[in-house]
């Protein structure tokens, strides 16, 4: 098969599976081709719905104490048990999804998008700008995610916005590098050259010809990194530099459980921890599935 044919097949795959363009058809194909990913997609969707309609689902207000039932194992009245001051763990887990998802989605959208545009410009213009940009990204990436996020969160002071910004900054280099590498290969493609031959400006070539081809890798990256962002948010909460109490987050619920005794009651650890695990797993596997659907070349790789 010639290069042109390979490219054609890939282009067709991209167009056929573009989730944005052919939502219905693409979704159906996606479900048929990778039922496992579709299943995890449904779980992820349910978690998002749970966060949105938390007040309807939760049996109790998340901050309300039931002084007749403190540190009680799961019962009929409190399915997931209660914490030291009698707050319903189920309600808190449900409300906790709000903080986790809001922070993770905002941070990933902010960080990955910023990184993506940076990577677009870096890859497109190349030269010294690219060289300097890549060193900055390497610098950011050389810190472990959690340490960097902690340092930023501590420097800015605890709070909702702070956590989002801290996590977003750790996501910038990932968006930047992935999109840059895509742009580097795209800008050599003949149709970009052809646009230049028409007299198209840099802005036009970047936004009209290169950026739309980056949507697939962007989606994959963003979905996968949602999981990572949730872990960082939970870790920050656990370490006490995340969203401050009393607002429930899965991270600070785990941190609270440590105060309940030398060996924390199992329900205070299992349920928030399980929520984190399930959510991260769902987004990661969904991301893998989207990647396989959009880019058949990467099928089976980690």
């Amino acid at each position, binding site marked *: 098969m010639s290069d042109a044919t390979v490219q054609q097949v890939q282009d067709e795959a991209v167009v056929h599976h573009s989730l944005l363009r052919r939502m219905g058809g693409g979704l159906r194909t996606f479900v048929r081709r990778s039922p496992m990913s579709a299943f995890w997609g449904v779980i992820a969707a349910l978690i998002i719905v749970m966060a949105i309609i938390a007040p309807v689902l939760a049996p109790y207000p998340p901050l309300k104490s039931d002084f007749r039932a403190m540190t009680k194992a799961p019962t009929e009245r409190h399915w997931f048990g209660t914490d030291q001051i009698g707050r319903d763990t189920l309600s808190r887990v449900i409300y906790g999804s709000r903080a986790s998802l809001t922070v993770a989605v905002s941070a990933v959208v902010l960080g990955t998008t910023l990184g993506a545009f940076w990577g677009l410009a870096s890859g497109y213009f190349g030269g010294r700008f690219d060289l300097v940009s890549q060193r900055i990204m390497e610098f950011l990436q050389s810190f472990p995610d959690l340490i960097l996020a902690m340092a930023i969160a501590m420097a800015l002071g605890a709070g909702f916005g702070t956590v989002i910004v801290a996590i977003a900054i750790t996501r910038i280099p990932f968006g930047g590098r992935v999109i840059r590498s895509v742009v580097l290969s795209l800008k050599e493609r003949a149709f970009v050259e*052809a646009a230049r031959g028409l007299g198209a*400006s840099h802005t036009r070539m970047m936004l009209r010809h290169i950026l739309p081809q980056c949507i697939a890798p962007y989606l994959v990256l963003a979905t996968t990194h949602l999981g990572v962002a949730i872990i960082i948010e939970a870790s920050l909460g656990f370490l006490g530099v995340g969203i401050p109490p009393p607002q429930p987050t899965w991270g600070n619920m785990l941190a609270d459980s440590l105060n309940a005794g030398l060996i924390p009651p199992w329900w205070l650890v299992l349920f928030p921890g399980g929520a984190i695990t399930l959510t991260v797993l769902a987004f990661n596997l969904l991301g893998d599935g989207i990647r396989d659907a959009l880019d058949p070349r990467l099928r089976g790789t980690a």
Partner: protein
Amino acid sequence: MQPPASTMPDADDILRVEDLKVHFPITRGAVFRRQAGAVRAVDGVTFTLARGETLGVVGESGCGKSTTGLAIARMVTPTAGRIAFEGVDITDFDQDHMRPLRRRMQMVYQDPYGSLNPRMKVRDIIAEPLEVHGIAGGRAALKERIAASMAMTGLAPAMADRYPHEFSGGQRQRIGIARALVLEPSLVICDEPVSALDVSIQAQIVNLFVDLRDRLGLSYIFIAHDLAVVRHISHRIAVMYLGRIVEIARRDDLYRDPLHPYTKALMAAIPIPDPELEATRPRQIVQGEPPSATGPRVGCAFHRRCPAAMPRCAQEDPVLMGTPGERAVACHLHD
């Protein structure tokens, strides 16, 4: 950088290329970059193109024919020499200075698969040049222009809402031609426009180019790698070898009486469409490969492969000599 718009003589010529050189530097070292040499892709090309004329450019892979086309369209920067398009010296123009001129000078590319954005509809692909140059007009006018351009290249305007991958190679090349012609250019640089197509489709597309030229009065630089393809379309043909024109002549003269041994070899490689004659055809196959485009030029670039090489050919580099616009050859046999 705004060079003075020097007007070269002879306004009849739509394009004048004088001693064009395009050298690509080879650099060593990541931090302290230094130039270690250069690939001399185009190394002194001179020709003129009259209005309405078609110049076929042929030569083997790597001879610099595509780079010559790209340099004329100012998609690559010439190292030396001058290019004048419609009397305007465009040698040092950047993209902003070139933009108004690109309305009059368009390109058709080799790869009909790669040169169309897979995510754009045919309508948007053909509309893009109009948008870039701000001559889109109203919605209805735009639609009409796209339809006219499609009809002209043999595409049904009803297909405007399809994506490139829904078309065959020949149809895609028609889309590429429609995109080039929607601006009503005077010069079209065709960079191997039929090399990627099936032989049966090649003839159709070449005929389309001829038809459009005659109807619209276009000038072409028609790059190809075999003489059979350019024969039908060209008025004059330039044969390139290692970055230079080794022979340039009117089509009929070149086919009747090729002078340069390299041209003769190319001619001998054209298959005869008759199996019996083809079987008895004398074969003169050029042995070996062209010398490196990075090394020093000693003697004639073709002398190691030339069946008629003389001792002189190894020492002295022949220059292109003859009547400009008529016939010229760079070979010691014809000094």
